[in-house]
């Protein structure tokens, strides 16, 4: 063996050892645009941190919850970082399934996180997940149709105005529905909208003693309003429409208004996908006359470290990078300001370049600022959460109630019957779960 061969071999061995010593982080995530973008940019992180490798596991949202729950509950240790919503964070943190994020570093600027979002991810003052994308809900409407109907959208409209406007805009011959709203059953589908709607009507899921409130007048009023509105001004088959279906209808110019997650603003304003991109206006989630409440819809996708992870230090390093201001700058430099993940940091909404590139930036911030998940409705409640109730039982209960309400929109059930059934189901479930003594 000559010297050259020996040196070459030695170098290879050293390189291999280096690779073998690298820590591999396994990250479980959902398939959405921001996460796909992050996967594409991961090489920037590994370049700066050669001792850390990253492997992504992309799963369907419900499968992800199931997999991660099993893994954490059985201490499987398969994931070092998990992508979870702000519904799970407080529940899982209280069960000690997540590690507190106390090593994000000084440069992270934790105070820059939007207060509403940060509050939803903290338990006892400790941050348990870092947000990479956040949203509230707002009205997206067709400025041209409003103009044609002689209407002007106020910045902060009431439900009464929305109801009138939707009926006025509806043109069945032209296949235009005045309003598109979620009707598909599910705790994260129709119940997200209906819960926020009822919050804005002054209703609540439970009173201070966890007694279900479906027998109260606020629920009857909000559900009747929703059912009548969908009947008069909604699209056909609305009971099977969720976020994606309404997005398509709006993009195809078939909805006068759509009230849904603020993230949709960038989709309906994108001329590549939307036929009405230049005709869209935005306004705050409506409130009821005399009730000062905009529904308090607040959602964020967040990165957290399961307690079973053996690589917490490297995981915190990745989370600090992926949810930092520098990451936002990186996305902007590669894909433009309109594509940066929204709704997590105050600094983004102070950025003139972002505000110029994204016409929806200011209304999005206004919607997020108007949401307070610690006080979802005007009456006192024993829970947190705006369009959901942050208790483990809510997924199952919310979906059952969602099916009852979806049947109302489909014309298979009356408002009274659905509310009576919802009250009975919720009372039974909450008693079984030990909330009602």
């Amino acid at each position, binding site marked *: 063996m000559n010297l050259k061969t020996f040196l070459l071999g030695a170098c290879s061995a050293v390189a291999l050892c280096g690779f073998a010593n690298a820590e591999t982080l*396994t990250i*479980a995530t*959902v*398939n*959405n*645009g921001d996460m*796909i973008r992050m*996967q594409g940019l991961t090489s920037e992180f590994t370049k700066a941190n050669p001792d850390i490798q990253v*492997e*992504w*596991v*992309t*799963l*369907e*949202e419900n*499968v992800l919850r*199931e*997999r991660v729950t*099993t*893994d954490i*509950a*059985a*201490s*499987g*240790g*398969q*994931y070092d970082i998990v992508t979870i919503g702000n519904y799970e964070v407080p529940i899982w943190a209280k069960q000690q399934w997540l590690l507190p994020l106390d090593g994000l570093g000084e440069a992270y600027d934790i105070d820059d996180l939007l207060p509403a979002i940060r509050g939803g991810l903290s338990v006892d003052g400790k941050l348990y997940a870092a947000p990479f994308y956040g949203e509230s809900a707002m009205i997206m409407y067709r400025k041209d149709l409003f103009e044609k109907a002689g209407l002007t959208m106020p910045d902060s409209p009431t439900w009464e105005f929305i109801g009138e406007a939707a009926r006025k805009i509806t043109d069945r011959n032209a296949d235009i529905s005045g309003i598109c709203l979620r009707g598909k059953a599910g705790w*994260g589908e129709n119940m997200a909208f209906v819960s926020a709607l009822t919050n804005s009507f002054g209703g609540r899921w439970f009173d201070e003693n966890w007694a279900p409130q479906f027998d109260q007048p606020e629920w009857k009023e909000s559900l009747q309003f929703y059912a009548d509105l969908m009947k008069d001004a909604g699209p056909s088959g609305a009971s099977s429409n969720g*976020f*994606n*279906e309404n*997005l*398509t209808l709006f*993009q*195809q110019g078939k909805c006068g208004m759509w009230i849904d997650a603020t*993230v949709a603003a960038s*989709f309906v304003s994108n001329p590549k*996908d939307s036929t009405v991109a230049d005709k869209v206006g935005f306004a705050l989630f409506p409130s009821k006359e005399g009730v000062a409440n905009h529904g308090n819809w607040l959602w964020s996708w967040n990165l957290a470290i399961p307690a079973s992870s053996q690589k917490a230090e490297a995981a915190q390093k990745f989370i600090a990078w992926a949810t930092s201001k520098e990451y936002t700058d990186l996305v902007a430099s590669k894909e433009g300001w309109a594509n940066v993940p929204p709704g997590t940091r105050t600094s983004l909404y102070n950025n003139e370049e972002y505000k110029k590139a994204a016409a929806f930036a200011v209304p999005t911030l206004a919607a997020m600022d108007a949401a307070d998940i610690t006080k979802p409705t005007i009456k006192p409640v024993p829970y947190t959460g705006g369009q959901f109730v942050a208790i483990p039982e809510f997924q199952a209960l919310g979906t059952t109630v969602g099916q009852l309400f979806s049947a109302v929109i489909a014309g298979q059930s009356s408002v009274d019957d659905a509310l009576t059934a919802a009250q009975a189901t919720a009372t039974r479930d909450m008693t079984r779960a030990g909330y009602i003594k």
Partner: protein
Amino acid sequence: MARTVSRGSKIGWTIAAWLVALLIFFPILYAFITSLKTEPEAIAGFSLIPSGTFENYVTVQTQRDYFKPFMNSVVLSIGSTILALLFAIPAAWSMAFSPTKRTKDILMWMLSTKMMPAVAVLIPIFILFRNFGLLDTRIGLTVMLTLINLPIVVWMLYTYFREIPGEILEAARMDGASLWKEIVYVLTPMAVPGIASTLLLNIILAWNEAFWTIQLTTTNAAPLTAFIASFSSPQGLFWAKLSAASTMAIAPILILGWFSQKQLVRGLTFGAVK
């Protein structure tokens, strides 16, 4: 006496058979058609005419690595099938040719394990896998797929073996064949059509298994079922991309089934007509 079939009735039955076949195949066909649509087209409603874009296939290839889960699917389905046959052939032999009073009960008990919902044993299996270091490994998943398909394999082989006259095996024994030789040189060649169809069916079952393959894997051993699942999205449209991913995932097994259909049909009807 041969039964005469009128020409009209033959045409009628042929059309009916084609219609039934088309009905069964339609979901796969529609997934393929949807994969050639744009996302808004895919969600717009029922239509059999796509715009013919291949963009979804390009996106699927760009976003995720297809080769690794494909290789995992190949290794897991073939590995688990071979392992299952190694256990099932002797088991089915003993039950078919040396039955006891309890044979029927054992067969029923084996089949009854398939009646339990898989999720009921998720946590114990998960903990076992964790303790033995088998999570996200091909070996662990091969064993798992073997175990879940073993009852069906044993049942199928038992049915085929029962059709083979025991006298032939007795004759082999009288000629001095050992048990091993009897199985390898006499029984197996006679049961080839049955074994082949069991093998093919088991490969298909293992290829399509979508509960354990998703629950027990993350990155290293995840097969094509996990690849498909990753294209469902909570935000934005995904049906066309999901259809493209599904088409890519089922194409290999569909082609295998197509080429081996003669063998499969021969095996499935083995012993049906004496």
